[in-house]
């Protein structure tokens, strides 16, 4: 149905521009930009030597980096097109890259297979271990993640190992130890990107520990690095929303409409403050989720669940999305949206998976724990209708 509506594109009609000078589209790069020139040179080189795997890996990696920096999935598609031109068996860097591209589409099983194959060929390939660890953490398979953290440690990749272990500890019932590990890892690195990542995660851990002042200080230190970073802004504005500082969220995110996850937080803050912009931003989110659904993209379900729950007050839809998301991703934020949706939908049974995870993992965040308790008593579990 959504696909149909989109294809028909009912609220617009094709038109013929009045003048040649009318600007129709702004491109992400100009031909003279260094990035565009570099890409053009690489593309030309790959075209000239289509069987050169190292060159292809470089181009694909360059595309993928661009996708991350600009948050633009088109570059992921470009990268994948470069990689899949090569026949199996792929060399280790391309194999790992294919895994990375697969995890981006939440094809975790396919990604793990690629990393596995890469590690058979090159057991010391740290990137494959790190990615595997990251996927296991998302899937809440902490025993498997532990092995990857250890492997990184043994390979002497201290920073990666510290990041891996710190997160693992935080997710599995040792917030204090996780905090210490991440803090020690922070001391190991001067690289701004790494520091930003570690400070963001430290901020989250501090917030889970209920140390709000510390969390604020960490987030502010990360922001002071002066880099645009969508994940940092999402974590920081989530913290502010929880603290009831919606006005600050509106101020921070005003120019971030283009990023779906931040647009969601912006719309939440505007709704709480009853600002006139809220309706327009909600409509934009509806359109974007519909566009993703139309192409069969299911990577947005966690955010869509939150949107349905908090902005549209459609608890049953939110619950359905949160459950579907939790079947794939099981991090604390995925757990939280499922608990909140289950409470709103008065459907305690559907949050049982999260309560089981909490029991098993021992994850200590007080908010998650009290939500879990509330979800259990949100309805009478007696007879079935």
């Amino acid at each position: 149905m959504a696909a149909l509506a989109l294809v028909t594109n009912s609220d617009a009609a094709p038109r013929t521009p009045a003048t040649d000078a009318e600007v129709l589209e702004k491109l992400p790069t100009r031909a003279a930009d260094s990035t565009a020139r570099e890409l053009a040179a690489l593309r030309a080189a790959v075209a000239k030597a289509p069987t050169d795997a190292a060159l292809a890996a470089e181009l694909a990696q360059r595309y993928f980096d661009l996708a991350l920096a600009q948050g633009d999935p088109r570059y992921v598609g470009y990268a994948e097109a470069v990689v899949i031109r090569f026949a199996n068996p792929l060399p280790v860097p391309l194999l790992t890259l294919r895994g990375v591209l697969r995890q981006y589409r939440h094809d975790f099983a396919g990604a793990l297979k690629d990393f596995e194959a890469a590690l058979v060929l090159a057991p010391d390939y740290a990137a494959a271990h790190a990615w595997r660890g990251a996927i296991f953490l998302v899937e809440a398979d902490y025993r498997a993640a532990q092995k990857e953290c250890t492997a990184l440690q043994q390979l002497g990749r201290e920073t990666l190992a510290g990041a891996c272990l710190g997160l693992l500890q935080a997710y599995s019932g040792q917030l204090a130890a996780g905090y210490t590990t991440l803090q020690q890892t922070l001391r190991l690195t001067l690289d701004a990107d790494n520091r930003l990542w570690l400070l963001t995660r430290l901020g989250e851990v501090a917030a889970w520990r209920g140390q709000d002042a510390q969390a604020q200080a960490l987030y502010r230190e990360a922001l002071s690095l002066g880099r645009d970073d969508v994940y940092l802004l999402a974590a920081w504005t989530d913290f502010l929303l929880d603290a009831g500082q919606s006005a600050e969220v509106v101020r921070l995110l005003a120019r971030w409409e283009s990023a779906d996850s931040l647009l969601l937080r912006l719309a939440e803050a505007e709704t709480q403050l009853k600002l006139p912009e809220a309706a327009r931003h909600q409509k934009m989110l509806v359109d974007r989720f519909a566009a993703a659904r139309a192409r069969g993209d299911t990577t947005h379900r966690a955010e869509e669940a939150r949107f349905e729950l908090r902005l549209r007050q459609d608890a049953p839809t939110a619950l359905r999305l949160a459950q579907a998301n939790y079947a794939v991703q099981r991090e604390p934020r995925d757990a939280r949206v499922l608990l909140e949706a289950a409470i709103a939908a008065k459907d305690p049974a559907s949050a049982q998976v999260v309560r089981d995870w909490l029991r098993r993992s021992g994850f200590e965040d007080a908010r998650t724990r009290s939500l879990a308790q509330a979800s259990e008593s949100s309805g009478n579990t007696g007879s079935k209708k």
Partner: protein
Amino acid sequence: MMWRRLFLSWLVLVAGPVLAHKASDSYLVLEAKGTQVSGQWDIALRDVDFAIGLDADGNGEINWGELRARHAEVSAWALSALTLERGGVCPLQVTSHQVDEHTDGTYAVLNLTGTCPSGEAELGVNYRLLFDQDALHRGLLRVDVDGVTHSAILAPEAAQQRFSAEKPSLLTQFGHFFVQGVWHIWIGFDHILFLLSLLLPVVLVRELGRWRGVGRFGEALREVLWVVTSFTLAHSITLSLAALGLISLPSRLVESAIALSVVLAALNNLKPVVNQRRWLIAFVFGLIHGFGFASVLAELGLPADSLVLSLVGFNIGVEAGQLAIVAVFLPVAFWLRNTGFYRRGVFVGGSLLTLLIALVWLSERAFDLKLMGA
């Protein structure tokens, strides 16, 4: 070097893909009428630029002049990536170029037309646009083949698809709605309880304030026929009126009234008020239950071209589902009618239990509470 990238990438993995823009889609709408095909194809200007380069002056912007100058190449590039077949290849041409806005920017609009060798066969679509350059590109297709509409996602692994003009046969459609009707009376617990509440006393007769078993099976059967027929007649009326869009009631009101009907039917067993004309209760409340069925039917979606047939199929399905329940219930009830088990356990106990359940429903639905877990 590698792990710097890894850190960045980790961030994104943990955050999930951040879609500041969305991945690339084109929107293709096709209509095949006999040998004639026409269509509209919207392709993002960014994608056109990536494939063939549009930004002539290199200022990072595409204006109408730059696009207009390249219309011939845009047509050639796009048409080389799309093949339509109906009894052979249908040569396509672009009749005009326009532009349109979608959620993620401006799109080139290509208006297409073509003639196929056959006007009868299936329509084959072979789509290859951008796949070799952007593996995440998708073509979102809506195609109308002689009045039958399909939609599909064209992807590298599903680049070639066929669409037929054949509608599902009327019998298939009738069958589909018949089965749905049977199914929905069986899973519609409130409808069943209402019906059973009315049927519990049919094997009994009230005399001088006391119940006794009916003498002959025929007596019970006649009563059942009256009740079931009037229930069916009533819900058919409202179901049809609602399904045809002539009347619509708020669902909370309908659901609450259905719960109330079960409460009253059970109460009437415990403290008889209406004794003689039970079919009247069945009729009055059947009107309400019809609205309940209509909401189910609305979810199923009635095909516009076989509306009446589907409606009749659904109604007969509901009827058949009811008769199946009656066929199981009546002989057993008749057989047990003079036992204490039936009089106290099934009749009184069952009515009490029904009353209790229906009261919970009523309070849930009327006050939007949730007392029973889902």
